[in-house]
Every structure is written in structure tokens, then in C-alpha cells.
């Protein structure tokens, strides 16, 4: 294992200065996520326009560098995408963290993919996978309008 791969500059940067760490005004979808193991919390706010495009996305919460960076990068990347595209990106990311070598989606460009792959270092740290995926699971809940709190412990 290599810590440097986990804590790359970009992760540390997003972890320390997370983008979109605020609350979207007039959001029309939201969901809360919680990791009971460590107490990490995230609240995702989403504003979809009439064409189901992500007009704005933001989050509030606290957590480790990995979870903050993951939420930060995620919100950056899905902004402006359509709902269906967002879902594809989310699933692709979760598959990659779980088992796949590479991202498969054709929505993100290579730069964006490279950015996202920075989070793949977490695969070597099974207990930290939940940190990286919490905000993504929560985003799915927001889109699907699940009222239940997402809980990554199980």
C-alpha cells in the first residue's frame, strides 16, 4: 500500500478546501448520508432544472479528507449534467471503487476521469471505501427522492 497514492495533492486540496461546501438556494432535491461507524455526515442539495439538468449541487457536512474530497470532486463533476448522466457517473464510480479497473462512462472527459481516479487509491483501504462512497450513495438517494437516511455502515 502506498499512502502517497491515497493522500495525493488533489485529495488533500479538495479535502482542505472543498468546493461547493454550502447550501444551494431553492434546491429541489436533497438527502442526508451518515456513516455510523465514524460519525461522518453529509447533506446533499440538488437543483434540477425543468430539463432535469443539474443546475446546482452543493453539500454540507463533515468527515475525513477522503470523504470531503470525494464530495467536493463529485459535486464539481456532476454539475451541468443531466439526471440520467449523473446516475451513470455515480454507478460507474461505485463500480470502479468496488471492483473495476477503470471508469467506463463516456460522459466525463479524460481530465475529469483522471481527477476522479485520484480517489481509486482508497481501494487498498477497505475500511475507508465507505468514506469515499458516502456522498455518492447520498446523491443517488437525493435523485431518487429516498426519504431514508443513507447509511454506509452495512
Amino acid at each position, binding site marked *: 500500500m502506498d499512502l502517497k497514492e491515497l493522500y495525493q495533492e488533489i485529495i488533500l486540496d479538495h479535502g482542505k478546501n472543498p468546493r461547493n461546501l454550502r447550501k444551494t438556494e431553492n434546491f429541489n432535491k436533497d438527502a442526508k448520508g451518515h456513516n*455510523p*461507524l465514524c460519525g461522518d455526515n453529509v447533506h446533499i442539495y440538488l437543483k434540477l432544472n425543468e430539463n432535469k439538468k443539474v443546475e446546482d449541487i452543493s453539500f454540507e457536512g463533515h468527515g475525513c479528507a477522503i470523504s470531503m474530497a470525494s464530495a467536493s470532486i463529485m459535486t464539481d463533476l456532476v454539475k451541468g449534467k443531466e439526471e440520467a448522466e449523473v446516475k451513470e457517473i455515480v454507478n460507474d464510480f461505485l463500480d470502479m471503487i468496488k471492483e473495476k479497473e477503470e471508469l467506463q462512462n463516456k460522459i466525463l472527459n479524460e481530465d475529469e476521469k483522471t481527477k476522479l481516479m485520484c480517489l481509486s487509491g482508497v481501494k487498498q483501504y*477497505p*475500511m*475507508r471505501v465507505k468514506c469515499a462512497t458516502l456522498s455518492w450513495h447520498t446523491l443517488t438517494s437525493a435523485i431518487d427522492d429516498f426519504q431514508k*437516511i443513507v*447509511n454506509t*455502515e*452495512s
Partner: protein
Amino acid sequence: MDIDSIKKEFPIFDNKVQNNDLVYLDSANSSQKPRVVIDRIYDFYSKEFSNVGRSVHYLAVAATNLYENTRTSVQRYINAKDKNEIVFTKGATEAINLVANTFGQKYLEEGDEVLLTELEHHSNYVPWHFLRNSKKIKIEFAEINEAGEITIEAIKNKITNKTKIISVTHLSNVTGAILPIKEIVELAHSKNIPVLVDGCQGAPHLKLDMQELDCDFYAISGHKMYGPTGIGVLYAKKKWLDDLPPYQGGGGMINEVKKTGISYGELPNKYEAGTMATAQVIAFNESIKFMEKVGIENIEKHEKELLDYGLDILGKNNSIKIVGNPKNKGGVISFTIEGVHPHDIATILDEDGVAIRAGHHCCQILHEKLKLPATARASFGIYNTKDDIDQLSQSIENCKKIFNI
């Protein structure tokens, strides 16, 4: 199947017990452990020990993975649909208490009925008795027939529109009767009644398929499956585990905890409060793999052969009365000898290294019905041989001699 080489995998048989070879005929009580299980515990404590699920350091991560691997193995072994339908408990007794308590809390009211059978072990009666006291429910007992069996008719006879749950053993630890679980479940489900199966004697000896059996709950003890003590399994359909309240409260089973309220964790955590029996769960994986390696079909076949041999030999002995004569019977022979109390039999057999059990085997209801205060019981495991039964038979002769019969 080569029993001699299987037997060699059980270190206990390398040692003499009071100068005798051990003839262990008490597996229905608890089975002996193969080397792989014992070694796994040793190695885990020696090289890998950590608590699971709570820390992020290397040993904790590794232990957590091992712990969850056992869940996957159990799921595979009993063919459950979902990994999270496997809840670890300290034993079958706790598993049954868990269901009785949580199902009782939520669904039982005064006048409701719980249907058991006369074959049940105390562990599948006392937890329901608690509800008789606290909730004023009734307990009904499906009756055995002459052969010591529970037929589907016996169950049908006792179902009323007040019956809220049926809880029955898979295989009687006294008569050896194997219950028609699939038929019972079909009948019960046709009336919307859930079924709990006490699988203590089923899991070590019968091929299990939860999706085919379709029961709602199935309780297992690890120590009867060539596994460690202090570990059991509750299989429950996911819908029940989602629906029922938690049983014990503590670390690990919560989601969010505030002074004013608590939300509970998701499956499987909801039912696993506090530090679990980590080492035992991890070693139990080796029991499952051991049984898979031997093959449950082979185990069934071998034990059936022993049973037939034993019934034949003991049946020829006029002083011996065998308790129950079920058509579908597992590797258990309970018997009495006119003029010798079972405790005396057990003590005398023990002198030759033959370990059997005597008493009511935690089945007082059955013994009262049979008008027998106690019976002697020989029960089989994968390591038993026909020689063991010959020795049993010979020691019984010795017993008769001492008592001048």
C-alpha cells in the same frame, strides 16, 4: 468416503480417555472439532487478532473481512438469498430467544397462540413461555404419534385462527424424527403464519436450502456443527429482520445516537450488538468449509448407515427398548434398559470410554408424554464408525452383567 482419515482430522481421538479409546456418541449434545477449526482459532489469536468493524487499522480491517467471509460461507452453505439474512448469535438458544422476544413484542397479543410440538427442546419452549407470562398468549403442542414423529396432520390439528407463529424442531434430539418442514411451511404460509425451525440437529446432519425450505427463521448452533462454542446463527428472511425491532442494544448496532433518541443500524448490524464472538465466527468458517469438503450428502449417507447398523444391533437385544421409530430418522438412538436407570447406564459405559448422554435431554415434555423419566442416548457424528457401535453394544452387555440382567 474414508472415515478413518476423516477421523484423523479430529485431534481428540489421538488421546486416550482414562486408558480407553474414546467412543464419542454424544454429538447431538456437542460435536468434536477438526484440526482446521482449532488451528484457525490458534492462528487468529496468535497472529491476526483484532476487534472487528470499529478500527481502521490493518488488523481490524483484516479481521472484519474474515468475519464477513464467514457470513458469506454460511449464506452459501444454507443457500440463503441474501448475506444479510445471516445473523451471528452466541448459539441457537439465543437465536430462538431473539425471535420470540422481537416477534412477540411486535405481533403477539393476549389470546394469540404459538404452536410448538411435543418434541421441542427446552430452548424452543422457554422463550415462548416468557411471552405466555408477559403477553398472556397460549402455547399449543402438536402431538407425536406412536412412532415419535410429528406428522403434517398433527400440525394441522392444532392450527387455529389464533395461531400467530409455528416453531418446530427440524430433527428431534431424542427420537431422531425428521419433521416435514417443507410441508409445514407450505401449510403455515397458506394461512399466513410464519415458521421458525430449530435447526440445531438439522444443520449438522441434513442438506439445507433456505430458499427451498422457505421457512421464515432457522436457528443453528456452531458447536454442534464441528465448530467452536459460543457461536450460533439465526437465519431470517430479510423482510423479518427489516421489520422486527432490535433485540440487544449496544455498540455497533446503532445508526445515530442522541440524548433524546436513537436510530438503529441496517442489516446485519442491527442484530449484532456489542463486541461479537469474533474468533469463533472466523473459525466457524473452517467448520463450514470442512463440512463442504466432506460433503453433506456423504455425511447424511454415513450417518444413515451407522443408524441402520445401530438399530439393527441394539434392536436384537431384548433388554433394550428403543424410543421412537420414525420412518424419517437422523443419527440418534435413545433407549432404555429394563431394570437399569439411564444414568447408571451412562456411568457404566463411560468406564469403557463410551460417552453417551442420559437424562431428559432438555425435552421434559416429550419424556412426560412417553412416561419415561429419563432415557439413554447415543448420537452420531461424521467421525463415528461401526466399531463404535460394536463397543456400545458390548458395554451395554457389561452393564447388564453388573445389574444381573
